[in-house]
């Protein structure tokens, strides 16, 4: 797990860095949240998860991150079960799930990204500090590093969590509604950033609700409403007909459910 410095070659060896999901099923008690979702993608891609509220977009991200237990199916990364690779995955929570008043500075937040590398009791070494410096610098946050996290704008907070993912040297970024609440400028900036990160060979999966800008922001889309409706390149998959099927399902055996707030 020490070979974290090969992002640049991911794109050239996509087959080695594949995220393969087979028959993923998640239930909250008796309520079906995700029903047998299967798809695979590889690093270097930006994947949008599209679907109505409560369709299981967040659940899918959390299942990949290992935050909710799966009822059935497999999630494999680089050919091995995803649990083995937890330090290569970074999950960025939805805004309302973060305790913004926690007394932690932006730098402290980014330092948390090094915990998988330092271990629970290991020393915080110079190279860890250097990784934090690089992450802050890459996202143009160095001058804000001593701010408490609530004192940042929405875009800066979002970039702070992405900086933590960079400090962690994560290959896969799982973002829950990253564009929500950002103004136009911040949103454009985040879009450019995601393009840059995928260009470095990282895989980005993000739940997203604004259909209009999907073609600009994402290479692939996964249409989901409990079951998977479609998956593929944005241009060929995000058709009006597919959108209609995703958002206006009829005769479903059970209504789509929202995950419980604490899941």
């Amino acid at each position, binding site marked *: 797990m020490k070979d974290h410095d090969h992002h640049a070659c991911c794109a050239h060896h996509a087959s080695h860095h594949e995220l393969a999901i087979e028959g993923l099923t998640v239930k909250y008690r008796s309520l079906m949240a995700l029903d047998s979702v299967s798809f695979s993608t590889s690093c270097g891609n930006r994947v949008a998860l599209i679907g109505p509220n409560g369709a299981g977009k967040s659940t899918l991200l*959390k299942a990949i*991150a*290992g*935050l909710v237990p799966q009822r059935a199916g497999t999630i494999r990364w680089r050919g091995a079960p995803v649990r083995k690779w*937890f*330090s290569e*995955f970074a*999950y960025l*929570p939805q805004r309302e*799930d*973060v*305790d913004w008043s*926690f*007394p*932690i*500075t932006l730098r*402290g937040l980014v330092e*948390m990204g090094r*915990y*998988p590398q*330092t271990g*629970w*009791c290991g020393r915080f070494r110079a190279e860890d500090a250097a990784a934090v410096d690089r992450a802050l610098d890459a996202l143009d946050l160095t001058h804000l590093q*001593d*701010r*408490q996290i609530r004192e940042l704008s929405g875009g800066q907070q979002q970039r702070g969590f992405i900086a933590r993912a960079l400090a962690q040297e994560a290959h896969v970024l799982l973002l829950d509604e990253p564009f929500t609440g950002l103004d136009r400028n911040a949103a454009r900036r985040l879009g450019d950033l995601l393009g840059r990160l995928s260009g470095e060979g990282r895989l980005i999966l993000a739940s997203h609700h604004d259909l209009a800008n999907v073609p600009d922001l994402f290479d692939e889309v996964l249409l989901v409403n409990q079951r998977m409706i479609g998956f593929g390149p944005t241009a060929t998959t995000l058709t009006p007909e597919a959108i209609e099927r995703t958002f206006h399902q009829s005769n479903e055996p059970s209504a789509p459910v929202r995950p419980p707030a*604490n899941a």
Partner: protein
Amino acid sequence: MLEVLTTGFYQRALLAAVMIGFANGFFSGFVVLRRTALSVSALSHTMLPGIALAIFITGALTQANAFLGALFAALIVGLGSVAVSRGNRIAQGTALAVLYTTAFAAGVAILPHLDTRQELEHWLFGDIVAVGNADLWIVFSISAVTLTTTNLLMRPILLTLFEPNVAAAQGVPTRTMQYLLFGLLILSLVASLQAVGCVLSVGLLVAPAATVSLLTDRTSALFWGGGILGALGSVAALLISAHFNLSPGPVIVMVLGGFFLLAYLFGPKYGLLSRHLRG
């Protein structure tokens, strides 16, 4: 006043004040981060019926059985509330309120049947000047255990408090961390019994870090600053109480409360005054 400091019991009291003040001040960081100051208050009151129960069962009031009784009652009520709230139906605060009032009621029912009622006042408000060598060892051991454990496990604990989901995904046994914090909290409460008594022990376990949180945004400063403030405040309070012939326990809590008030009013960033001046 100075000659009083050279006496053995006063030196022991000063040593106890430093250790209890630092360990509890350090731990107050977790209490503030978990936002569980009210549960700490409930737990500290639970210790009294625990002590009463221990006396009732063993027929005598000794250090050892008082500590054990307090520990037992706090563990039952504290861990019980965590267990009950795991079903999602009952919030932990609710469970704790029911359990601790029940325990307190049991203590009150037992009290009239004990012939050591006078000495129980000492457990209510503490008597740090009366610490013996055995007490010092208990305080030292508890402080050492609390400080070592929390420092070794600082990262997983912080991650558990900030983002329990992410912590779990990174392999942190978050449930174990929560129980561990609760256990250590009870140990800290028991350690502060001698100094400030069970009613006032909340002050030592909340005020220091609450004060620091008004002065800094750095997480680590919350713990070390809380520890230093707790130790300084306790020693200062001991000197003040000797000078004015006051009871030391209440003075410790008043000094720490005074620090908090000062920070609240005059803190450079979050203080009332500076916020007012900034508009």
